Each structure stands twice: as structure tokens, then as C-alpha cells.
């Protein structure tokens, strides 16, 4: 009977392993001042790629700032920021082919922007208007688009992890030269789906990159209360998976690791785990107040490791960005986002008929009957249903 995990070495005295037994180094390429470490091996990156990444960084910063404001003003019901994790998201997204399938958790809109999701598309989703690709069925930030190979966000935590294993296996069986990438936080790694998905990917040989954003907190729960092992990376090794830990605030380190992870996954039809050590600078969501569970000093300390700033300094050092251009870019996006908010909030809600669509490929007779009855009721009491009554 074969058992690949059996250690052939024998000892004759009791000797336990513990979490320190596994030495997991952390890949760093960029220093805080934007210059690479002396011995660092840089990823494949040229000016055009750097600019595409940086453009998505600035857009995401602006979007987060503006939409947080919009939520506070009551214009949208909910929002989540990517702030502090831009390098983890964009460094990895930029290493992919645009047809690699992204299965995100919920905080990865920077990757969606990188793929080409327009400002209007972001707004239509958040305002649940009739142009929303998701037809107003989910809370703000649950984006998804088949055209950009970005699967629609689902709220239950960790469900995308075994799904990514399935997507990867599907790509492999179709003979497509693409991988799936699956984002999740270190908190989601406590769910059963995480174990199920990772183990199945390793055993069934699915080309998928599991990308853990270890950002310090699962809502209010710090990592010390979330897991007792050597981070999430140690588990990748346990599942028999190629694993790396990177500085998640270092754009070039994440890019380098993901470029090589992708090549490995494709060549070997095997999964890879990347643990990106980062910090969620913002609140978990707009329903959360981090001052209740962590100090301002701690946050301030992490602001010094701002991933966007570090990458920006590198770009300036390379001569690919000027401070003045950077400011202009922020200003342009502030105007663009604000204008898009004003347009999107005036677009009407989807028609009531859509409520029964997409439950099945065709509405069932019972659903049609329920819709007719609902419409008759709305007609009778139009003032009680202002979003749809005028558009029956």
C-alpha cells in the first residue's frame, strides 16, 4: 500500500514536531523607499504593465474613499474597501492571463478593475439599478462578469474555494491553458470548504492558485484567535501543495510569486498556495468599527507600510511616473467616480418581472402565477411599491 505522506525516517526516542519546525521564509523584493533589495530577483514587468497596475491602484483608492462616503451619506447600503491590500490583489491579478478565472471572496475589486470592469459597471452594481449585470439581486460589492472571467461574488464564506478546484479541473479537462485563482482571507481558511477545496485540488491535480490574504483580522477576530499553526502557508505544505509566503504589501514580491505559481500550476496541473502577509487598513465593512478591537497606533504603524506608496516610489525611481501626473490621476478618478455615482443613482431599479427570472433557465408555471398575482397587488397599491409601480 502506498502512502506518500509517510516519513521514511525512523527515530527511537519520542520527538514531536511543532509549528516552528516548519521554516517558512517571506519573499520581499521592494524596500520601503521603493528600491529593490540588493539580491532581489525582479518579476517580469515592463512600463506598460506597471502603469496598468498603478492605474488600478489609484482607481481602487479613489473608489474606496468615495463609496465609503456614499455609504455614510445613505446613498448605498453597504461597502467594503480594499485599502491596504492593493498590492496583494493587483500583484497577483497582474500575473494572470486575462482569461484565467477569478473566484474572489469580496474584497478584490481591484482585480476586477484591472481586468477592465468600467466605473459605470461598478456603480450599476452598487446602486442595484436596471443596468446591473446581477439584476439587483445581491448587496453592493457582489460583482461578477462572464466577459471578464470573474465569477460573481457569493456572501457565504469560503464557498468559492472548492469551486475554484472544480473550475481548475474543468479548465484542465478542456485542455485550456488557463488556471483558476481563488482569493480568501485567513478567517475563511477556518471554514470546512477550505480544507475540502485544498485537499481535493492537491489530490485531483487541479491547476488553481489559492491566494490567501492574511490581513490580520476576520471582522474583529485577530489571527491569534483564528488559528494556532504557522499561518496558512503551513497548511499548503500539509496538503502536499507548492507553497510560498510573500510580503503582501510588496507589489513586486506578489507579482513574482504569482507569475511563478501560475507557470507551475499549468506545467504540473497542480495547485499552489500563496499566503500574502498584509493588513486590512480599513474597517471590515461599513457595518464595522475597528476602534472597538484595535488601536490607532497599530493602524498607524501599518500605514507606514502602505503598498501603493511603496510601488509608487518604485515607479518614480524607474522614471515611469511623475508626482504631478499621479496627483492628476487621482483628481481625474475622483471626478469620474463622482459623476458615475450621480448617473447610476438616477437609473431605475430593474423591472418587477425580473424577480422571477433566472431562478431556473425558464420561469416555472407556479412562478409565473406568483408574478401575476404580485403585479395585480402592486397595481392596486402603487404608492406602497414606488420602485416598480410606475413601470408595470
Amino acid at each position, binding site marked *: 500500500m502506498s502512502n506518500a505522506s509517510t516519513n521514511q525516517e525512523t527515530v527511537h526516542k519520542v520527538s514531536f514536531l511543532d509549528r516552528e519546525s516548519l521554516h517558512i521564509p517571506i519573499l520581499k523584493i521592494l524596500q520601503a523607499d521603493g528600491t529593490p533589495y540588493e539580491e532581489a530577483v525582479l518579476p517580469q514587468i515592463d512600463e506598460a504593465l506597471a502603469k496598468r497596475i498603478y492605474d488600478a491602484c489609484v482607481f481602487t483608492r479613489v473608489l474606496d474613499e468615495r463609496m465609503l462616503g456614499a455609504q455614510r451619506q445613505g446613498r448605498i447600503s453597504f461597502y467594503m474597501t480594499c485599502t491596504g491590500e492593493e498590492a496583494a490583489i493587483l500583484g497577483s491579478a497582474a500575473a494572470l492571463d486575462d482569461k484565467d*478565472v477569478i*473566484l474572489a471572496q469580496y474584497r478584490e475589486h481591484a482585480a476586477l478593475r484591472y481586468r477592465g470592469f468600467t466605473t459605470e459597471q461598478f456603480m450599476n452594481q452598487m446602486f442595484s439599478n436596471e443596468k*446591473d*449585470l*446581477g*439584476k439587483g*439581486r*445581491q448587496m453592493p460589492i*457582489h460583482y*461578477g*462578469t*462572464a466577459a471578464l472571467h470573474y*465569477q*460573481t461574488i*457569493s456572501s*457565504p464564506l469560503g*464557498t468559492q*474555494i*472548492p*469551486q*475554484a*478546484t*472544480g*473550475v*481548475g*479541473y*474543468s*479548465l484542465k*479537462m*478542456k485542455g485550456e491553458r488557463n488556471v*483558476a485563482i481563488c482569493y480568501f482571507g485567513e478567517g475563511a481558511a477556518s471554514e*470546512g*470548504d477550505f*480544507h*475540502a*477545496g485544498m*485537499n*481535493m485540488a492537491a*489530490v*485531483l491535480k487541479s491547476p488553481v492558485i489559492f491566494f490567501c490574504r492574511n490581513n490580520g483580522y476576520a471582522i474583529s477576530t485577530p489571527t491569534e484567535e483564528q488559528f494556532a499553526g504557522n499561518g496558512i502557508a503551513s497548511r499548503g505544505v500539509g496538503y502536499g501543495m507548492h507553497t510560498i509566503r510573500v510580503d503582501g504589501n510588496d507589489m513586486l514580491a506578489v507579482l513574482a510569486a504569482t507569475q511563478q505559481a501560475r507557470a507551475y500550476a499549468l506545467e504540473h496541473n497542480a495547485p499552489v498556495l500563496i499566503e500574502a502577509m498584509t493588513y486590512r487598513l480599513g474597517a471590515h465593512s461599513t457595518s464595522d468599527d475597528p476602534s472597538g478591537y484595535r488601536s490607532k497606533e497599530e493602524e498607524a504603524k501599518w500605514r507606514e507600510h502602505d503598498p501603493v506608496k511603496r510601488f509608487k516610489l518604485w515607479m518614480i525611481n524607474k522614471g515611469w511616473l511623475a508626482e504631478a501626473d499621479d496627483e492628476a490621476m487621482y483628481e481625474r478618478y475622483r471626478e469620474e467616480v463622482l459623476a458615475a455615482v450621480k448617473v447610476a443613482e438616477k437609473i431605475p431599479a430593474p423591472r418587477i418581472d425580473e424577480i422571477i*427570472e*433566472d*431562478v*431556473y*433557465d425558464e420561469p*416555472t*408555471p*407556479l412562478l409565473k402565477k406568483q408574478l401575476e398575482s404580485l403585479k395585480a397587488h402592486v397595481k392596486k397599491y402603487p404608492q406602497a411599491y414606488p420602485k416598480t409601480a410606475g413601470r408595470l
Partner: protein
Amino acid sequence: MAEMNMLQAINSALRIAMEKDPTMLVFGEDVGHFGGVFRATSGLQDTFGRGRCFNTPLTEQGIAGFANGLASNGTTAVAEIQFADYIFPAFDQIVNESAKFRYRSGNEFNVGGLVYRTPYGGGIAGGHYHSQSPEAYFTQTPGLKVVVPRNAHQAKGLLLASIRDKNPVVFFEPKRLYRASVGEVPEGDYELPLGKAEVVKEGKDVTLLAWGAQMEIVEKAAEMAEKEGISCEIIDLRTLSPWDVDTVAASVKKTGRLLINHEAPLTGGFAGEIAATIQEECFLYLESPIARVCGLDTPYPLIHEKEYMPDALKTFEAIKASVNF
């Protein structure tokens, strides 16, 4: 036509579907070389290779999540959950993910071409972890189709239709009948329609409604009733979600009486849903209260299986009570 038992019919359906759809994969616990604990997938790995018919690790939630991922990327997925009793670890992936993939994405993504096959039901001295009928948990979930065949012929035709349906299907197989139900089954490809009930026998005094393994129970009860001069109409619902209200209502309007039989516990069972709808549709036609002959509100027992079962005798008594109301 060939003589087949239900397992052979299911195997034949899977084989035909895999031949015609080169993307289709069959997987689950022990389904590879061994052919599944009930041998429904026998020989498929030999024919189609380990890439298309394979064992998974022991993880129902993983199997379901993996199946969702496959189907969302356009790969036809037929996942076996070894016993319906063990479907609950996969519950979230099925009811929150499979069922809502199309709806929550506004049809950007869907998991049509995904079937969860799972043996359900008692009568095999299996105790509560090998005998449950959990169909009602799934009929409450919009977006899923729930299908239960009653014999070998149906199992093949309904399974082929389920695999080719554009929606995710939970396909409950009555394991008590796996080998016991033998009949003529076409060797070729055919489908039976989903969402359509079958009038198995016409009658005029009372409508008996059941599905899956309980069909032979109501047929037996009907024979007993016929001897006492009661004419029974028998309907097999076949698909529980979405269910065929029209066929059932038309029958009840004719007979004036309805008896629903299922193996799952009475409370919260699918019979309650049918009874509520039919009293709405047929209120002025009903000659007696709608009767439910169901399992007890206990976990499925081991030694008292016979007492627990909504068997032919209990059904016969309920038919008489309904007719003599």
C-alpha cells in the same frame, strides 16, 4: 429492450450521457474503479478513464463545491453523494451555491448540467443514517430541481433528462429498489420529462399520490381497496420541484379525494405543501379532508422500521377513511 435492474439502468444512462457529452465527469466517494458502493458507476472508469470517472476524497461539501466549479465553467458534472443521509455536509454548497448561481449572478454564470445523485430511503435495515428521505429540505430551495424515479425505466429516462437539464438537479434514487426493481428498459437513449407527473392508473373514487419507492406501496394499497369496490387513481409525481400541480388538481377534481404518501416524517414534509395547494385549487371539489400517510416524526428507526413505515396497510386504512368520511 432489455431486462435491467435500477442500478443497471442508471449505469446505462451515465454511459450514454458520457459518450454523447465529452465534457461530462462522474465522481464521488468510491465511484472510480470500484464503481460506487452500490455499483452504479461500474465500468465507467475502464471506458472513460480516470480523468472522467474518479474517486474524490471523503468530503461531501468538497464534492458539491467542486461540482459547482465544474458546472460553472461549462463542464457537465454528475456527483454521487454516497447516501442521502450524508448530503448535509454539502447542504450549503447545494442550497446557497448550486441553487442560486444563476439568480445571484443575473445569469452571468449558471450550473446547469449538474446532477447530485444520491440513494435515499429505508426498508434496508439501515437505521437512521442510511434510511432518510431528505427531499423536503431541497424542495424549499428555489433554483433546484428535485427528481425521484420509481423503477428502472424511469431511473434511466429521468436521469438522462436531469443531466441534460439547464438547471441543477438533486436526483434521489430509492436504494430499496436498486436491485429489487427489474423491468424492461430500452438500451438506447431516451428521456422522460421533468416537472411532469405520470398517471399510472386511472380511477374514480380517490387519487393516491406518491413518488419513488412508495409507489409500490400505494399500488399495493390500491389493489386492497379495489377488492372492496373502491376505484383508485394512482399518480407518480416523479419531479417534486417544480411539481406538476395541474395533473394532480385535474385528478382530484375528478375523484374528489386525495391521499399523499411519503416516507419522510409528516411534519414539514412535502405532502403538506401538496395538500395546501390542492385545497386551494380544488376546495369545492373535495369530498373529504386530504389525507397524509407519512413517516412518524421520529428519526428513522432500526428495529421498528416496519411500524414506522407508511406501508400498504396504513394506506389502505386511510383510503377507507377518506372514502367513508
